[in-house]
Every structure is written in structure tokens, then in C-alpha cells.
């Protein structure tokens, strides 16, 4: 068995934490897990990605086309990683736009997001989610990563269930923060309603 997940986003969004959360849950379930983190130069604001590999993988780098899921915390970062994914890869994408400064310097605006989603949906199974709204509803913007983990769980792409993630959250959080993260997880799980899913 092998399950490969690329998680990508912008530095500061909690991408690495999402990777360790999934990994913690997988390890507790007895799955061999390796994960890679590439930090780059910037503390925040640069492109960040994490590869999580569950099962019989040796190295932390997911081979081209072998990802089961791409969890993108930002639409442009989803596009940037399409060159790494395969036909089987399902794409979960948070629809919140974080325009890179390279746009403003050229007086340009963020590309049309509906068009971006449509382009992706032509070739891949994609699940767009307003994760920012759900995280705020849960009580904190920073719970965005847990919302997206919740979405991933609900698609069935991970060899993990809700309880596995809850236990991993419990090892990490308590009190009010745990409540917020629990709510974020629940909202993520319920985010995809029938008809909302775009498939090719």
C-alpha cells in the first residue's frame, strides 16, 4: 500500500502543521510514514510544499504523477503544482486568493478564480472549498489547515478516518484551541455537499 499527498500553500498558512497532523494520525494507526519539508528562504509569504508518503515509501519525494491527493491552500499554488500530479490525483483547493507581490508590482490583479477552477476541473477531480470562511466560522483563521484536512478525510482519499485525526488533534491541542480545531475539522468534513463536487 502506498498513499502520497502533496500539501502546498503559502508560508505562514500552516501547511507543515497539516502534514504533521496527517502523519501523526497515520503513525498512530501503524502506517509507515515519511514526510519532507522544504522551507526555502522566506519565513512567510513564499511558496511552501510538503510531501507526505504513507505506506511502503523510502524517500520523502513523491515521484511525478504518483500523488493521490494535492491539498492546495491557495489556488495559484494548486496550479503551480499541477506539473507534479497525475490523472488519478484528486485536488482539494482552498479558494482564498493570496496575490503574490509580483502581481501588484505590475499593476496586475489575481486571475479569474472561476476560470482557474474550470480549467483544473477539465482534467482533474477537484474540490474547491471556501476554507477561510469555515475557519473563521470555527473561530480562528489559523484553523484553515484543519478545515482542509477535514475535507481530505471526507473525500476518502486518505487511509484515515475522522477519529484518527481527532486523536492526533488531542495530542496537540487542549481547551479552547481544541474546541476551535474540532469545529474546523467538522466543518471541513461537511464542506463538500453532493453537487458541489466538480469532476471531469
Amino acid at each position, binding site marked *: 500500500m502506498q498513499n502520497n499527498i502533496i500539501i502546498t500553500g*503559502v508560508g*505562514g498558512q500552516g501547511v507543515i502543521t497539516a502534514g*504533521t497532523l496527517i*502523519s*501523526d494520525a497515520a*503513525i498512530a494507526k501503524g502506517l509507515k*510514514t*515519511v*514526510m*519532507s*519539508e*522544504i*522551507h*526555502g*528562504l*522566506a*519565513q*512567510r*509569504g*513564499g*511558496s511552501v510544499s510538503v510531501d507526505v508518503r504513507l505506506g*511502503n*515509501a*523510502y*524517500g*520523502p*519525494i513523491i*515521484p*511525478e*504523477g*504518483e500523488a493521490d491527493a494535492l491539498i492546495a491552500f491557495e489556488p*495559484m*499554488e494548486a*496550479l*503551480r503544482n*499541477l*506539473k*507534479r*500530479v*497525475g*490523472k488519478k490525483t484528486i485536488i482539494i483547493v482552498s479558494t482564498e486568493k*493570496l*496575490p*503574490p*507581490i*509580483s*502581481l*501588484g*508590482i505590475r*499593476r*496586475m*490583479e*489575481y*486571475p479569474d478564480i472561476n476560470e482557474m477552477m474550470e*480549467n*483544473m476541473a477539465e*482534467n*482533474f477531480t477537484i474540490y474547491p472549498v471556501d476554507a*477561510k470562511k469555515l475557519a473563521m466560522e470555527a473561530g480562528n*483563521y489559523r484553523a484553515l489547515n484543519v478545515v482542509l484536512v477535514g475535507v481530505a478525510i471526507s473525500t476518502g482519499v486518505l487511509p484515515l478516518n475522522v477519529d484518527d485525526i481527532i486523536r492526533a488533534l488531542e495530542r496537540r491541542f487542549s481547551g479552547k484551541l481544541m474546541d476551535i480545531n474540532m469545529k474546523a475539522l467538522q466543518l471541513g468534513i461537511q464542506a463538500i455537499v453532493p453537487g458541489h463536487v466538480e469532476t471531469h
Partner: protein
Amino acid sequence: MKIEELLVNETNIELFLLGNEAIARGALEAGVMAATTYPGTPSSEVGDVLSGISRKAGMYFEFSTNEKVAFEVAYASAISGLRSFVFMKHVGLNVASDPFMSSAYTGIKAGLVVMTADDPSMFSSQNEQDNRHYGELAHVPVVEPSNPQEAKDFLIKAFEISELERIPVLFRTTTRVSHMREAVKLGPVKKELFASFFEPDSGRYMTLPSSAYGNKEKLIEKMKRLSPVSDKSDMNRIERYGTGEIGFITSGAAYNSLMDVINMRKLDATVLKLGFTYPFPENLVADFMKQHSKIIIVEELDPILEARTRMVAQIKKIDSEIYGKLDGYFSMSHEYSPDTVEKSLSEILGFNITQHYANVMIEEPAPRPPVLCPGCPHRATFYAVKRAVRMLNLKNVIYSSDIGCYSLGTYEPFNEGDLIISMGSSIGAASGFASATSQPIIAFIGDSTFFHAGIPALINAVHNGEKMLIVVMDNRTTAMTGRQPNPGMPVKASGELATEISIEKIARAIGVEHISNVDPYDLASTLQGITAGLKYHGVSIVIAKRECAILRDQKMRKEKKWITYNVDQEKCGKCMNCVENFSCPAISLQDGGIVINPNLCDGCGVCAQVYVCPFRAIEVANNAK
């Protein structure tokens, strides 16, 4: 995981650890009593962990001024009888190479392990030098782990080798080992009280020609004795898959990529996986070659294992076919992935690769290069420097930059970086430009880099009477590697109080007469300081002092003083200066208007100042959180 979890003295548990965290745990299990470093990615997290747990573990730990000092502190501890560990990024070993080379000649008393974290593909470095060469150059043993579990276990073995022949051992990781996470089985923590006492040992540590002459022969003998140890080491092992027909020799992170390909393609392979790579296990490799007509060497960067394998084949007259980099099958640059290894193997073994990726043509999105954080004081300083240069109508300015977050000033919209070559080089190179050209020169250097290697260069510039403006980007931390303390702060690595070293006093003592202290968040005074500095005929310094935005954020959140700004659309004149020239990631152009993302805004308020927003349209938002 909480850092304290690494202190547990239980052996039956597994923790999900980053390679660097596993190495810190390895230091506890090896009974390390003294550890030193200068932070540098990809080695930084080892220090972050040790600074958090060293006091509880009864270990001495420091963030030293630079790698050379770190090495010397660890070396002195080791020859005083304490197991000592010094770690750094690959280019850091260049700085420490002077004492490192000679330490092999004197030898040590208790174990000394020197970790170099190499960076194939240069994720956060200026080059991708292969530091395994330092083993051969210095005549010291080299150990190369492939994953976090090995990183922890091999570190302990490296200390054993070090004490076996009283020789420093080079412990080499790469980014993908240091920054790979997996479940790591813990071993017992070694708690031995070493008696630390320095014995001069008849001048053994005096590297004068008279003693060095004899020490060289002793060093060669030590390495000869370690050769059979390497042959028999359990860090070097053989694994068999399928019929085991093809012989592979590999090490480090390349082993992981190779194994993924062997698994994916079900190759009939026997893998000689080397972890103790120098002295080269010659007999082991010779025997291995005799059993395989085809030998493929898979290693990242330079063909070090390959060259030695070919040497062994020549000396022992073994006629196996050997494939690697020297015949062009594998690349000499950048890290390997399963895909690149598969491609090289397809050429050697003659199989076809089916394309795995979707190959969907989608336009590459706008780039998102590394940027200064929202609220970063450096953004304000770069903005002010650019404005001052324009106001004074200076042409052909040379921006001599340095290594730290402010390296990012090189990128648009500031473009204030023409040269970054090594730590502290901003001032050394500025000195050279000043004597070689008549162009205006601005050097940027951070607080930690100033202490690391800027001071000798400043002495040189002042002594030789050069003209330059040095902007010290003092953000009260070593920011880019994860905010470690430096000598400019009143705190030690362990959290105890320390003597704060004043950059201004150092500069004055050296003889710099024109010094301005400015707060970058106050653009008016920053501009004034920079303008005055640029007009001065001699070495002038502007100390732009303001703590790193991430440190400030943590405080503001704790004190619940967090504020954010937004744009009054009626006042906004849409001049676009804020997005075009200030370029904070929190500010963007949307639906024809300027907006500030409240989740990214740091509340520094620099964009609200008239120098950035002439319409005064940026105001404190009411939504304080």
C-alpha cells in the same frame, strides 16, 4: 511534538521526528556534554532543539559567534575530556575549516563529531559543495546517514569511531535527510559524568612545525587502522531484492530515491548501502564488485564513491562494468529524485519509462518568490534607501548585500543587491569596490552577520580610509534561520542572561565617526539618516534597529495589542505606489482598488506614512483582534 518529549528516557517508544530533531536526540543518547553551532539551514533545527533542552539535559550548548568559534569551543571541550558536538551548514565548514584541518593532526581526547548539513539543489544556500571532500582533505572519517533513524543511530556510532582513534569525525547530512520526518525508535539516554580536565599532553595540541611533522604520520596511521573498521561496520550493509543481479553502491539521500525506483520497477538488485564512507571500505566494495558484472553507483553531487570504486577496481584488477557520473549517466548537480534516478537507470539498463504525470498544459501562474514578511522592518529600510538614492540622484550605486533575510532585498521591487558571496562579505567587498571604482557603495549587513564576519572587514575599510555607507539591518535576532539569539541580545542560547554586545560601540571603537541610529518604522528619520550617511566622505553607518516582525507579532498577540490597517477607498488616489514600490504581501490590487488582507496585515503602520501613501488613505482598522 513538544521539544521536551525528546528528553524522555524510555527506549520502547517512537517519535515522529525531523532528521535534525533525531540528531539532537542522538546527541543525548551519545552522552554529548558540549554542543556548539552557528545557525544555518539545513542544520538549524538541531540548535533550536538543543537550546530548548540542554539545561535540563545537563549539556553545555551555545550559539557561537561563527562556525570557526563554534568549532574551537567544541574542540577545546573535546580535548578537555567531554564528548563534544559541533554542527553547521556546509558553507559554515569553510569558515571552520582552519581549525578543523589541524584538529585532525592533534587528535582529540573525548569524542568530537563535526556535522555538516549539505544542501543539494541549493534550497537555502549559495552553492551545493559536497563536503564529503573535507573528509579526504583533512584525513578524517566520514559518516553519511540516509534518514532520521540512521541520523540518530549513526551519530552515536560516529562518537565511537572518534574515540576509537581519537580523531574528529565528519557527520554529513543533506537537506532531504535533515528535513525528512519519520518515526524514530529511541534508545537509552547516556548519562555519564565525564571528568573534564585539560592535560597539555607534552605539547600534543601545539601545532608548531616540529610537532605537526610527526602528527601527519600518526594521522595517516589512524586512518589506515580505521579502514578495516569501515569494511566491517554495520553502517555499511548489503540488501538483496529479486534475483539480486545488478549491483548498486549508494549512500545518503540517494539511497532513498534508488530504493523507491527498485520497488516501483521490481528490479533485481543487490544494494551495497554505505553509511561509513571514509576511509572507503575497500575490501567490502572489492568483494561486492567480484559478485556483480554490472555495478551502478548512485550518489548525489560529486562522484566520490564512484571515483574510489573505480580506484579499487583498478588496483585489485576487477573487471566489472561500472556506471555513474564519470561516464555521463548521472548528473553531477542537484539532488536526485525517484524520477531522475529512474531516468538514468533506464539509459543504463535499457528500459522504457511510462510517463506518470498528467501533462496538462496550464499556464504557469505568476511567480511567488520568497518575500520579506508583512511588517518586516527590512522592507521599510530598503524602501527608504531606494528613495534616498533617488533624491540624491546617485547613479551606478553598488549594492553589496549579505546573508540573511535582507538578502531578499535583491528581488523586486527593491533590486537592492548586486553581490552576495559569503558571510560578512558585504563590507569586505564594499572595501574592494571602494578602492577599485568611484561608484557610490551601500553595504547591507544584519546584526548576526555583523558579529559573524563583518567586524574584521569593517576594520579593514576604516583603516584604509574607504568611502561607503553600511546599513546594519539590526532586527534583534538571527531571523532567516528561525530566530536564534546572537551576541547583540542580552540572552544566551540556554535562555540565561548574557552580556549584550553593542554594534555602535564596536563601530565607534574601530573609528567610524558617522553613525546614525534609526527606527525603520519611522520612515522620516530613516530617510534622514540614510541621506546623511550617503553624503558623508568616509565610512558611515546607519543602524536600522527594529525587532523582527515575527518576534513582534508573538508579543502583540500575547498582549492582545494586535491592530491592522485598511484602505479608505474614498481617500485612495490609486497611485499604486504601495503595491508597486512598497510591495507588502498584505496589500494587493483587487477589482481596481487597493485592499489590505486583515489576516496578513501585521499592523506595523509603515504603509500608512505619507512617504508610502501620499493620500493618507491607509488607516487603522476598527477590527482589532
